[in-house]
């Protein structure tokens, strides 16, 4: 496939090694150096490694400081960068975030939207699927590699890797960096990034309503955060080749 338009969603997150959690469960981001969210960076690396003649945009939603991660994305070789930023977007939960970003993406005619499988601050993993729903795109989650020449994507299903034919347009979430990928910007990409501007997109540019975004567009509110210590559970795998006998095995298990 030639000349695809790829959007890579990158988020600015506080360095997980340095961030602390307050007593009320809030991430204390103040004065903590931020970085490009590690899974988002993997998505970017997949886009750059497969770039060829395709066009790659890096997109972030966040405060003006999030320009740093976009600048970084440009240094890694993204063609253009957009920051969705404004007071109206503050306090957005996953659905309001996805709706806002979808409004922007739908204006720009992308074939592919690359995301990290989850961001390391919120850890919800909800935004990519919600994006796919709002955009009406297919979704391929937990991808480990992508081949844009043969249009295939490999997803990790815990016990098996599944290779699928890629059907466009699609959202893909990545959980691993590409093999042998570039870890440091090349000098030439670095220099071309110097000459590029990060375009800032505001509320008025998106044509959405106040009740679709920010705290007002959110359906959830974080009350508190706590660490859950998982109870030890044993998992039994049932052979699913014969669905009927698998189903009856499950029923037997459930009924006791």
């Amino acid at each position, binding site marked *: 496939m030639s000349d695809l338009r790829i959007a890579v969603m990158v988020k600015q997150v506080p360095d997980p090694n340095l961030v602390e959690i307050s007593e009320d469960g809030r991430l204390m981001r103040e004065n903590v*150096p931020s*970085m490009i969210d590690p899974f988002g960076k993997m998505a970017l690396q997949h886009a750059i490694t497969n770039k060829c003649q395709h066009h790659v945009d890096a997109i972030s939603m966040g405060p003006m400081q999030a320009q740093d991660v976009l600048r*970084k994305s440009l*240094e890694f070789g993204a063609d253009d960068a957009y920051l969705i930023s404004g007071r109206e977007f503050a306090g957005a939960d996953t659905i309001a975030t996805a709706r806002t970003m979808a409004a922007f993406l739908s204006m720009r005619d992308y074939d592919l939207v690359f995301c990290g499988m989850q961001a390391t601050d919120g850890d919800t993993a909800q935004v990519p699927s919600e994006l796919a729903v709002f955009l009406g795109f297919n979704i391929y989650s937990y991808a480990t590699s992508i081949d844009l020449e043969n249009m295939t994507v490999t997803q990790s299903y815990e016990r098996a890797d599944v290779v699928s034919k890629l059907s466009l347009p699609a959202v893909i979430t990545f959980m691993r960096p590409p093999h*042998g990928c570039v*870890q*440091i*910007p*090349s*000098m*030439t*990409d*670095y*220099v071309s990034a*110097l*000459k590029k501007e990060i375009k800032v997109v505001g509320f008025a540019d998106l044509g959405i309503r106040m009740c679709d975004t920010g705290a007002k567009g959110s359906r959830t509110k974080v009350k508190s955060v706590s660490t859950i210590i998982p109870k030890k559970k044993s998992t039994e795998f049932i052979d699913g080749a014969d669905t009927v006998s698998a189903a009856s095995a499950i029923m037997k298990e459930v009924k006791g």
Partner: protein
Amino acid sequence: MQRFTPDPDSPYTIDECKIRGRADSVSVPDDEEELRSEIERCFSSKTPVTINAMRTGLCGGGVPDGGEVISLERLDRIIGIGRKEDGYFVRVQPCVTVRTLRDTMLMKHIDGLKDVTEGACDSFLKDQRKFFYPVDPTEMDSSIGGNIAANSSGPRTFKYGPTRDWVISIKVIFSDGRTVRIDRGKHFASGKHFSADVDGIHLEFDMPSYDFNTNVKNAGGLYSKDDMDLIDVFIGSEGILGVICEADVLLAEWHPLISNIAFMPDDTSALSLIKDVRHDPIIAPEFLEYFDSGSIDLIRRVSDSDPTILRPPEERCSAVFLDMALDDTIADRYDRLFDLIRKNGGDPSKSWAGHDQDDRGRMFEFRHSVPKSIFEYVASLKEEMPALNKMGTDMSVPEDKSDEMMAFYRETLDSFGLEYVIFGHLGNFHPHVEIILKDLEDLRKAREAYAILAQKAVDLGGSPSAEHGIGKLKRDYIRMMYGEKGIEEIRSLKRYFDPEMILNRGDMIE
């Protein structure tokens, strides 16, 4: 104060050159007073004392040959901040590490520090500028006291000079326990003769008659210049004249840097790029290092087993590392750099650039993996062959002799059939040649080759020890520089400050 008898494999009887010494006891003073009384006790009982700081030394300076080890590890506090002209200085205990000092100052985490001059801490906090300690002896876990004792330098010496240039005051404990504070700019020699009253103590002595070579990076023997400052007698004295128990070091104003690694097709093209870049006024590199293709092969092997280390290109190549100031002129610097890389056969699109902490940190780990993996390799062979030690050169020559020396390294080591890699500070014409020893026969050959190389460096007007010092490992080489007479003069100066000859016995002179 803790005192104990060290085990045969105690960390207190070895440093990073991996020579194992022996000691009857180790003491770890909690403060300066305990340090002083321990030194006095050793003086009265004529017990030899070896000073240990972070033991990252590479020439056996801190390796004891009997007697007592005094470890300074608990004297590791940053004491306070002072103001000097437009900048600042920091007062430290000797075992503050370079890393701690750098991070504390850059992040301005100065809670609890004292004002060494009135209002200095407050003014430091409010100052919009950032400051850092610019001497970087590669090994960030080495101590400021150790750095002063060795007059350490490193890749940033290319721009900032060695440790000596940043030390403005020291407090020294002599072997009999007397203690003096020596401030820079207060006491000078007349010719080579000192006669000074310092802190109520009259000091009168002669410096060695040789003229210390400052045309090249040099850590070979005691510094001696006409009309020199008293403080410089102790900087680089490797602890043989006294123990540094406090120091004031200047800070430099920080500015952002961008690190670059240019991969070049072979060693010749990398060396040629270095020549082009070194004095280029547009690029104005602040750091310039060379890694031959053997070093890059080594990093590739390291990255096979350690995925956190960046992987170099798969095709055989050499590399040039350089840092540039990240300012408004950066695009012009790159235009010029790209021209020079291309002119020498390289490809900027296959080279790396990065300015944030993450990228620069990873590039630092990339280059540090060469010496580090060699240290680990030697340490792993040591069990089988305890007599083995690391054999790396640390020689510098004047600029116009750099090519001749580089060719001589290869010729000599090839003629001995030794395996080696060449990397390091070519900004100051001072590469490290690490000989990769496989057995004791290699060690014998390497020692022979080393002496030939050191003599060549001296003949070319250079130093057999540019930055690591002499310690116990390189005593023969200062004989090459100063002859018997020079060594006798060093000995009589030592006897003046340390009449029982107890301090760091066996270092620099026998």
